[in-house]
Structure formats: structure tokens, C-alpha cells
């Protein structure tokens, strides 16, 4: 675990109202920006009342956020990087009453675009419930307001 990057990731998540609303948190960020987020089981996110399995939309949010956070933690300086596209393969159903982890890493950072891949899993990363690839657009530091950059990179030091 990289303490500085994990803090950066958590401060970034704290700024996203929807992530706070569904209880997303940072589980781990390594020094090369590989990110794992944790989505607690939440009955409000159920898709099918009979099976009590969380809806795919919650997994989409988990993976979009995990991928985007991995981008933030892989770039030297903080830039806003909106999602260009995302593809998710649902390999098998998640089990109810258990949290879901979202792992993501950047496998290519180019001048304009960052390419990510990752998976969602419950107990074993080698037994994923979903696989995800995404691309993110680099807007550049000049499009990122300083106050926001400071808040995510350094936290509120006042």
C-alpha cells in the first residue's frame, strides 16, 4: 500500500457525492497506481428482490470509479480525466450480503488518453464477477481548478 496515493484516492472519492452515498471506500492503492475500491453490500442497490443481488449499475459505478481513481493515482500531477468509454463483461452473479471489490490499473498512459483494465470480485481476485476495460481523456492540468487539485493532492491542511 502507498500511503500518499491511498490518501489521494480517498480524498478524490470524498469529493464524489454518489460514491459517498453508496459507501464506496479505498481499500488499497499501490505505488504504481493499481487501485482497489470497496463497495459494501447495500440493499438499496439490489436489482432483483428474489435473488437480492446488487444491480449491474452499482458494479458499473464501482468499476468506473476504480478505473478513474487509478488514472488519478497513476499520473504525476492531478488532472481531471473524464471517461471516454467503458466496457464491462458480467462473468457471473455477485453473491448477496458480501462486499464487492473493484480493482483497476492503467496499462498505457499516452499524451491524450489513459487506458485502464480491471475486475470486480468478492473473495478472490482470480475468480472475478466482472471484467472491465476503459479509456479516459486527459484534459491537462490547465483545465483542472487549482483549489480542487490542492484539495485532492494535499488534503485540507487548514
Amino acid at each position, binding site marked *: 500500500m502507498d500511503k500518499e496515493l491511498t490518501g489521494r484516492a480517498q480524498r478524490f472519492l470524498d*469529493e*464524489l*457525492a*454518489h*460514491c459517498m*452515498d453508496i459507501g464506496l471506500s479505498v481499500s488499497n492503492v499501490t505505488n504504481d497506481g493499481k487501485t482497489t475500491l470497496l463497495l459494501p453490500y447495500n*440493499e*438499496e*442497490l*439490489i*436489482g*432483483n*428482490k*428474489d435473488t437480492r443481488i*446488487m*444491480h*449491474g*449499475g*452499482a458494479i*458499473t*459505478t*464501482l*468499476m*468506473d*470509479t476504480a478505473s*478513474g481513481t487509478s488514472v488519478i493515482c497513476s499520473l504525476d500531477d492531478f488532472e*481531471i480525466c*473524464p*471517461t*471516454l*468509454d*467503458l*466496457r*464491462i*463483461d*458480467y462473468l457471473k*452473479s455477485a453473491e448477496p450480503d458480501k462486499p464487492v471489490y473493484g480493482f483497476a490499473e492503467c496499462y498505457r498512459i499516452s499524451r491524450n488518453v489513459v487506458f485502464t483494465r480491471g475486475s470486480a470480485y468478492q473473495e478472490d481476485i482470480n475468480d472475478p464477477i466482472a471484467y472491465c476495460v476503459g479509456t479516459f481523456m486527459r484534459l491537462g492540468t490547465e483545465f483542472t*481548478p487549482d483549489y*480542487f487539485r490542492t484539495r485532492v493532492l494535499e488534503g485540507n491542511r487548514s
Partner: protein
Amino acid sequence: MNVRELVKKAHETGDYSDLIAEIPYAKKIGVTCERFGDDVIFKLPANKSNIGNPLLPAIHGGVIGGFMELSAALYLMMFQDVPKLPKIVDFSIDYLRAGYYQDTFVECELTRQGKRVANVSIYAWQKTRGEPITTARAHFLIPEN
């Protein structure tokens, strides 16, 4: 009440809220839907707790994705006689414009329905239909009757 009865009642009354209430995630993000002749438009009203970009502000991309995926599943239940929430196989979304903190609308189109799998194209817009904020496509497994 089973899904077929809920769909039948909703088609008769034009009120789809009981059908949508069967899906907690739909209630959580606030999905509604309205029928216009043979067309149906799904709506995600602006909701503070769906924000994912505090700067613009804009709706979380994952919520827009979840809304589109859910709309496609509801669409299959409403028009393809699918008796329960169909299982999703894969989902691919392109983000074309910022999804501002505003009402968002979705329309679905059945691209191909086979015996076991359906392919649905999904379009989302805010200001005008001609300027989609996202397009997506999804495959669903059709449950056996």
C-alpha cells in the same frame, strides 16, 4: 404480483411506478418512465446524490451507465414479454458529452433478439435528442419461461 401482471397493469394504466418499484436500484437513483404511443422514454430526474463530478457539476458516469442498463432491462420486460429482470452479459458505453446535473432521458432500441440473447442499443440525452450525452449497447440473457 408477478412481472407479467405488473407490465399488463402498467400498459393499461400508463403508470409504470409499481413495476419500477420492484427494483430497489431504480428507486435508489430515481428512475421513472413514460409512454408515448408505442414509444417509452425513461427519465432520471436531477438528483444531488447522483453527482460524480463536483466541478461542473455532472452526474456520475457510473450512474448514467446504471440508468441505461436498467432502462434496457425494463424495456425488454415491457415490450419483449420477458417475465423477470433479464441477466446482463456485457455492457459497453461511450461518453460523448458531459452529463450535467440535469434531468436525463433514455430511449432503447432492440437491435436483435435471438432465442437466448437480446442486443439492445441505448441512447441518453439531456438538452435535445439530437445531442446524445452517451450511447451504449448491451447483451442480455433472456430467461426461460
